[in-house]
C-alpha cells in the first residue's frame, strides 16, 4: 500500500494532475485580517499558497504565523524557509513547530542577501545552504531525529520543495542543480519568474534528457508586470529576475494607463506557451501586491479549478 499523500499539493502532483500555486504578498500588518483577505482572493484559483520568508531581506509577517493563520482558514500553505535568518538549531525547531501547526509543504531556498533589503547592516546567517537546508529537514522527515541524533516522538509528515532559476548563469549547471536538490530531499520545484520561454525550453530539454523524460514535478513561476517601469525595477532590484528587453518593449508600446492590461496579457501568453510542455507539472503565480490579477490569469489560460481537471 502506498502511503497517504502528506498534502493536497502532494496528492495532485503525485497523481500527475496540473497544479496551480500562488504567492501571497505578506502585509505589514499586526492583525490577521489583511493576510486572510489577500489569501482568500487567491484560494479559489490555486491548490496551495506560498508564504515567503521575509523575502528580499525585508522583515515581513512571520512565515510560520502566516501559515498557521491560513490553515485556520482552510487554505493550504507552502511555507518558505530561507538560510539567511536561521541557523540549523532554529531551522529544526521551527520545522517541528510548523508541523505541529499543520504545515506539510516546506519550500527551501537560499534567501536574498541582507544587502538587498532595508536592513543592510544586519548579520546574515547562512549556516546552511539551500541543499543542506533540504538535507537537514529531510533528515528530520526520514529519521524522526535531529541532526544531533536526538529523537522526536514521531517522524514529521512533510512534502519538501525547492527553487530553481533557469534564467541566470551558469545556465548549463541549473538542471544538475535541480537534480542535486532532488537527491537532497526536494519532491517538487518552482522556478523563478519565467519571462524567457526559449531559455526555459532549453533548460527543460536538458532536464528531460538527464531524467530520461521523467523529471520531478516542476511548476513554472510566472507573474504579471504592472508597467514597463515596474519591469525595469524588478530586473534591477530583485536578485535573479531576468526580464528580457523584448518583454519590456512589448509593454512599453502602450500608454501608461494601458500597460497594466498589457502586462497581464503578456503573462497569459507565457502561461499558454509553457503549460502544455512535457515536464511542466503546474504554474506558480507571483503577483507581487496584485492578488486581484491572479484570477484573470488563471481563468484566461483555462486553468481554473473546474476546467483544469476536465
Amino acid at each position, binding site marked *: 500500500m502506498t502511503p497517504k499523500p502528506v498534502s493536497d499539493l502532494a496528492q495532485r502532483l503525485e497523481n500527475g494532475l496540473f497544479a496551480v500555486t500562488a504567492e501571497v504578498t505578506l502585509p505589514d500588518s499586526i492583525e490577521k485580517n489583511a493576510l486572510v483577505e489577500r489569501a482568500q482572493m487567491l484560494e479559489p484559483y490555486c491548490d496551495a499558497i506560498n508564504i515567503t520568508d521575509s523575502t528580499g531581506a525585508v522583515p515581513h509577517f512571520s512565515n510560520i504565523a502566516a501559515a498557521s493563520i491560513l490553515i485556520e482558514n482552510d487554505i493550504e500553505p507552502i511555507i518558505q524557509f530561507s*538560510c539567511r535568518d536561521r541557523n*540549523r538549531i532554529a531551522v529544526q525547531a521551527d520545522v517541528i513547530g510548523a508541523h505541529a501547526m499543520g504545515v506539510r509543504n516546506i519550500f527551501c*531556498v*537560499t*534567501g*536574498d*542577501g541582507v*544587502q*538587498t533589503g532595508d536592513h543592510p547592516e544586519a548579520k*546574515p546567517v*547562512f*549556516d*546552511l*545552504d*539551500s*541543499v*543542506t537546508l533540504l*538535507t*537537514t529537514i529531510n533528515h528530520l522527515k526520514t529519521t524522526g531525529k535531529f*541532526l544531533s541524533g536526538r529523537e522526536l516522538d514521531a517522524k514529521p509528515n512533510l512534502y519538501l520543495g525547492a*527553487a*530553481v*532559476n533557469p534564467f*541566470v*548563469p*551558469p545556465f*548549463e*549547471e541549473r538542471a*544538475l*542543480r535541480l*537534480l*542535486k536538490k532532488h*537527491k*537532497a530531499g526536494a519532491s517538487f520545484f518552482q522556478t*523563478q519568474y519565467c519571462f524567457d520561454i526559449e531559455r526555459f525550453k532549453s533548460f527543460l530539454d536538458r532536464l528531460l534528457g538527464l531524467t530520461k523524460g521523467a523529471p520531478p514535478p516542476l511548476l513554472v513561476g510566472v507573474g504579471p508586470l504592472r508597467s514597463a517601469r515596474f519591469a525595469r525595477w524588478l530586473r534591477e532590484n530583485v*536578485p*535573479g529576475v*531576468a526580464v528580457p528587453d523584448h518583454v519590456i518593449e512589448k509593454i512599453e508600446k502602450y500608454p501608461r494607463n494601458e500597460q497594466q492590461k498589457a502586462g497581464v496579457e503578456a503573462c497569459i501568453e507565457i502561461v499558454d506557451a509553457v503549460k502544455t510542455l512535457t515536464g511542466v507539472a503546474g504554474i506558480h503565480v507571483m503577483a507581487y501586491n496584485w492578488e486581484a490579477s491572479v484570477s484573470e490569469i488563471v481563468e484566461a489560460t483555462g486553468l481554473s479549478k473546474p476546467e483544469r481537471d476536465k
Partner: protein
Amino acid sequence: MNKVRAFESTYLFCLKILSGIIPVLGTKRPFIWFMVTSEKALKKPLFGCQMCGQCILHSTGMVCPMGCPKTLRNGPCGGVRSDGNCEIKPDMKCVWVRAWDNSTQMAVFTESIQEIQPQLDHSLSGTSAWINDLGKKNDS
C-alpha cells in the same frame, strides 16, 4: 597545462604524499602546527582560503566556495546577475560561475561538483583541512 589542471595535479600529488604521512604524524603537535601554518600560507594567497577546515577545492573547480558572500557550498544561488556576477558584490564574478567553468576543465574531478556537500562543521574553523580529511578516513 592550464592553471586549473596544474592545481588539480598538485592536489593529487599532495593527496598521495599526505595519505602516507598523516596516519603516522597526524596527532603530533609540531606536525599539526606545520600543516596549519602551511595551509594558511599557501591556500590564502592562492584561493582566498578562510581556513574552514573542510577543504573541498577539488570538488569546486579549485575555486574556494567560502569566497561566496553567502558561503554556499553546494552551488550557485538564484540571485546570480545576468552577466554572471554576484548578487551581493556586483563587481565580482559569481564564485559558482567560476567553479562551474573550471570544473569542466578538470581531468579527474569534473563531476565532483555534483556531489552533495554536508553541513559545514564550524567547530573545525582554523584547523588543518588535510588532517581533518585524511585523519578521519584513517579513523573509520
